[in-house]
């Protein structure tokens, strides 16, 4: 640590400044992005690193990269661009699932920043691209994908930008391998531009305050963040807390995937999350590489311990994530992983279940599981490719002091895509978008309702990749609260209805309707403790029927 004197005001101002730089990278990216995942799903991240590759600040965006960024940058510097091999004007691109954030659609661009010829740090961002090639539109296919090579273009860390310009040849390689080259190109340019403007600000910060002072502030930020995190973690009684849940399967006709997490608080401010008892890695595009495993572990711990301070290297230090090599949560390359986004809700549910007893006021019933289908093909009207990337999101589990909110994004933070936008750009028609009556888990505080979304194809053919869950295992309630109703996916509900597996990929024909029916969320506390007024209100608003009120709550007219 440097011995430059540091006053609290300089510390405050520089700290706020690096937070604002990281945030601005993300804001720029969001506003210039082509990918729906970025602009509607907030599926992107931005960060500032110091000259040694330690995380200094991270923008408040996808939790899916919370604990993973430092490992990505460290690997790139240690294994691919060591020492002084990166020069001013360079930037490194990668999307490798093992080194990066866990699946090919996330492209990460890392740019070193220099002041007077000396490296002072890095700015970087990642963005979920609309497509990276591979077996199905969107590059998130689960079923039938047995190795990463089927998932599209794999980019190990490469010098993608030289002298401040994107390398045209490398760009052509990328664009030649993806389904929507215009969009991917637009987003790569957006990623680069966002880094460039942040680099200018970072330079100015170092110039204004001097390298020694800024670096002294970085050290202090990390020391304080680590101490604050340890203090928050130390409040949890020492012990090991375990949770277990299951994914339906890893594709049609496959067995369930076990998610088992043992969380050990040492009582001194450290925590270890061990995923080793979970299933082995699976031959389907669903595995969670260690960086992705880390991300949601860190997010859940921050939520539970109410330790929501901005992220840096310091507050990551007390959180250790362990998973057996070759297991579902630490697979060996080339394990496929395109559809791993489906896991985030379930990982949180499992940690929630483990910690509920220790922290009942921070726990909630299980979420409605979300659905992330893609419908893609060639649009008959224009002859151009289309990929309809959709996100269906439903309710939260009941909380200790209130019902679960209806229709709010779980864990990761997404917007839905408006029906009118989907229909303008894709040959589909949404037939319904509504809550499912009686689907929320009963309880003192009811779980949110499931959601039904029916989508009709109005094109000759298309490929549908489903990415859902909760068809086979209940979204559980807590402390006597009942589970929500399970999810279903039905093809053509009004004629020859056929039930579909949660992660199937299939061909659709004109007029086919896929009906996504998301699970309800779990209740909190025994239904008997629910107030009559709340039950009457739910009946009047149509969230439950009078029959359901009678059956679940023993509530009848006159109560």
């Amino acid at each position, binding site marked *: 640590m440097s011995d430059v004197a540091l006053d609290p005001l300089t510390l405050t101002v520089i700290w706020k400044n690096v937070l604002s730089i990281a945030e601005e990278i993300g804001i720029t990216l969001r506003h210039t992005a082509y990918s729906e995942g970025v602009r509607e799903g907030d599926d992107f991240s931005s960060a500032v690193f110091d000259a040694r590759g330690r995380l200094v600040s991270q923008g408040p965006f996808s939790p899916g990269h919370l604990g993973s960024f430092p490992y990505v940058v460290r690997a790139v510097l240690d294994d691919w661009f060591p020492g002084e091999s990166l020069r001013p004007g360079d930037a490194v691109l990668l999307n490798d699932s093992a080194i990066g954030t866990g699946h090919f659609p996330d492209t990460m661009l890392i740019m070193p920043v220099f002041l007077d010829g000396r490296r002072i740090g890095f700015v970087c961002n990642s963005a979920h691209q609309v497509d990276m090639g591979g077996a199905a539109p969107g590059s998130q296919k689960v079923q039938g994908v047995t190795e990463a090579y089927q998932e599209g273009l794999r980019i190990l860390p490469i010098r993608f930008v030289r002298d401040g310009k994107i390398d045209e040849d490398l760009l052509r390689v990328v664009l030649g391998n993806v389904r929507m080259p215009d969009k991917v190109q637009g987003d790569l340019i957006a990623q680069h531009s966002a880094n460039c403007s942040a680099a200018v600000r970072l330079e100015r910060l170092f110039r204004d305050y001097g390298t020694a002072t800024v670096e002294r502030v970085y050290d202090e930020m990390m020391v304080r963040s680590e101490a604050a995190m340890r203090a928050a973690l130390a409040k949890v009684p020492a012990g090991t807390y375990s949770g277990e849940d299951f994914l339906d399967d890893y594709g049609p006709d496959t067995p369930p995937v076990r998610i088992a997490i043992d969380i050990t608080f040492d009582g001194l401010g450290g925590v270890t999350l061990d995923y080793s008892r979970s299933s082995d890695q699976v031959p389907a595009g669903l595995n969670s590489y260690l960086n992705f495993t880390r991300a949601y572990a860190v997010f859940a711990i921050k939520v539970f311990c109410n330790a929501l301070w901005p992220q840096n290297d310091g507050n990551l230090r007390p959180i250790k994530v362990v998973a057996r090599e070759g297991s579902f949560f630490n697979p060996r390359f080339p394990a496929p992983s395109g559809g791993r986004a489906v896991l985030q809700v379930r990982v949180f549910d499992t940690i929630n279940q483990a910690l509920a007893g220790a922290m009942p006021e921070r726990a909630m019933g299980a979420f409605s599981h979300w659905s992330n289908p893609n419908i893609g093909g060639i649009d008959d009207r224009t002859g151009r490719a289309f990929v309809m990337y959709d996100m269906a999101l439903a309710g939260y589990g009941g909380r200790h002091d209130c019902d679960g909110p209806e229709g709010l994004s779980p864990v990761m933070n997404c*917007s839905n895509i408006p029906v009118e936008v989907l229909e303008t750009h894709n040959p589909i028609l949404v037939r319904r978008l509504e809550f499912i009556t009686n689907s929320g888990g009963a309880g003192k505080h009811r779980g949110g309702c499931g959601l039904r979304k029916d989508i009709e194809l109005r094109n000759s053919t298309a490929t549908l990749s489903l990415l859902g869950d909760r068809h086979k295992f209940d979204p559980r309630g807590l402390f006597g609260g009942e589970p929500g109703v399970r999810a279903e996916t039905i093809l053509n509900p009004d004629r020859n209805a056929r039930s579909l597996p949660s992660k199937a990929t299939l061909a659709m024909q004109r007029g086919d309707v896929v009906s996504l029916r998301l699970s309800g969320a779990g209740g909190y506390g025994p239904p008997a403790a629910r107030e009559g007024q709340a039950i009457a209100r739910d009946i009047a608003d149509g969230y439950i029927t009078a029959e359901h009120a009678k059956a679940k709550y023993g509530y009848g007219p006159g109560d």
Partner: protein
Amino acid sequence: MLRLAFDIGGTFTDCVLHDPATGVVHALKLPTTPADPAEGVLKGLDALLLQANATPGMIGAVLHATTIATNAVIERKGAATALITTRGFRDVLIIGRQKRYEIYDLFVDKAEPLIRRRHIHEVDERIGADGQVIDPLDAASVDRAIDAVLKGGAKSVAVALLHSYANPAHEQAIARRWAERALHIPVSISSDISPKYREYERTNTAVVNAYVRPVVDRYLARLQGSLKERGFRHELFIMQSNGGLVSPILARRYPVRILESGPAAGVLMASMIGASVGAEHVITFDMGGTTAKLGAVDGGVPAIAPSFEIDSVKYKKGSGLPISTPAIELLEIGAGGGSIASLEMGLITVGPESAGADPGPICYGRGGRRPTVTDANVVLGYIDPGYFNGGTMSLDAAAAAAGIAAHIGAPLGLATGDAAWGVHLVANSNMEHAMRLVSVERGRDPRHYAIVAFGGAGPLHAARLARAIGVPKVIVPVAAGVGSAVGLLRAAPRIDVTATRVLRLDSDVSPVIRDLYARLEARAGEELSLLGDAPGVIWTRYGYMRYAGQGFEIHVDLPGGPIGDDFAARAAQAFRDAYARKHGHRDDGAAVEAVDWVLVATLRRGSDERWRFAAADRKRRSRRSAWFPEAGGYTDVPVLSRAALAAAGALAGPAIVEDADSSVVVLPGDTVSVDPNGHVIIAIATGSH
């Protein structure tokens, strides 16, 4: 003829009277009367007429900004409202856009819709994205929905069907049926209120319109009646969120357009002041008790946003109810004089929590216990505790210092002055971030802008923000305290009509655009006929466009005049230029897509740009100790009133220019002067930081 303007805010009602012939302006500030806001207005009128020795017959126009519609939403005191929508989409309003406004907090909830689910009813119909009818409207289902609405006791109703922006036929049919059956209940149809795509935003906009309609209707009817009784013969105009005036008949039909009436007037004031000193490009900075509001004026024209939010939580984007109508663009953050300073992890944080006006900062002596930005500014010597609000209120400087010392200084081991400076600095740092978003992040080069600072706290902080961002000039207008009311005087009657039509501009779509604008013009014509006398209409066009495949559109000013066959190409070019200005890069090969098309009709008004405030200013001159770290901490600096500064000519900082309604901090190296209209102008030393 005289022009009279009044702005009803949450705390004060500001009234000004302007004589365009002489330029004389009379101003008055009165407490707002929330129970009956019209009462406060009428009182103000009487007092102002007396002050100016005028009669109602001499008033040519009465211009009005009001928060009545916004308050009805925030307090959930609008009319019982029902919604009719497309079968299968009952829950669009409740589902919303689903994103948490705090990404890392799973314990937040979303904005409470104005309507409970039981009051939402469906009809059988479906229209496609291209406007084609997929399922015809079933008349029996319409009657059933109307029955259900009536049974539910609604006093106002909104109709929002999918893709009605592309084909309003079904919504219009429901409105007609409604009129046949239940004339006494007003109907707001989404294709009329906000004909743009994105169903949640359009539905919510229609619902808000319906929700506030009876409230605004009653209020304006009463106000019009009372004005008539008092002998006002001329037009009443209401300020809209878009910065234009509108007649009461249109405001009563489209009350959703007047939600941001007051803040819009504030930006107009800033643009007017900027123009009067030759600053065409302005960043407006209004810092009051609980928030700071930032806006922009480019080339004399206030920036317009296609939508905004009301009733948001802690000013967080995405936490409020979206309103999809054009509005003067404002970024509001929780940084005001009353914002509370505290410590987290050994760092000073400021806001968004605010002590508000009651109890207010510690120095108010009304029971406030936690230090605020205003307390820090008193400790720093920026505010004279004996001359706050013109001496009408005396501040307890010792208590402010004790509070800063106890809560900030002692825990950090800082002297009280340093601690107060830290609070000031952090408040600035929050605003700097916001100001960067408004300027650099939106492609505005700060070197070409001036900051117009107003509100109680704006002039205290403006010079440092200007330095941090690189803005060379700060203007503190005279009578900043009644700024919004002054801005009303600048406003002209204006109507924005909008249509969503997603078009790629790479093929020849000029004829389509021509038809589209012909329809918009016809629509605007209908509204103009309800606007009163139209001496001359100025037509302007703008649109929202993006590179095909992007999700965020940007504002693009479109060429005027006849729409020839090269219009699409010119529009695309205008977009590419605007995009490059905003984001710093362009892609000439990529297709351009237009989404929303807007036509603006503005009525000509006389150029009455002469202003002279009647209130006389005294020449006061003193010295006091104030904190300037550039000069080594507490420094003995001159304190001048505007009049004294005007007499002295230019003055180099450090200095303070102080008046009844503002205190302007001038930094070492900068130069301050007063222009002939009484506006304080600071030249910021460029290159200093």
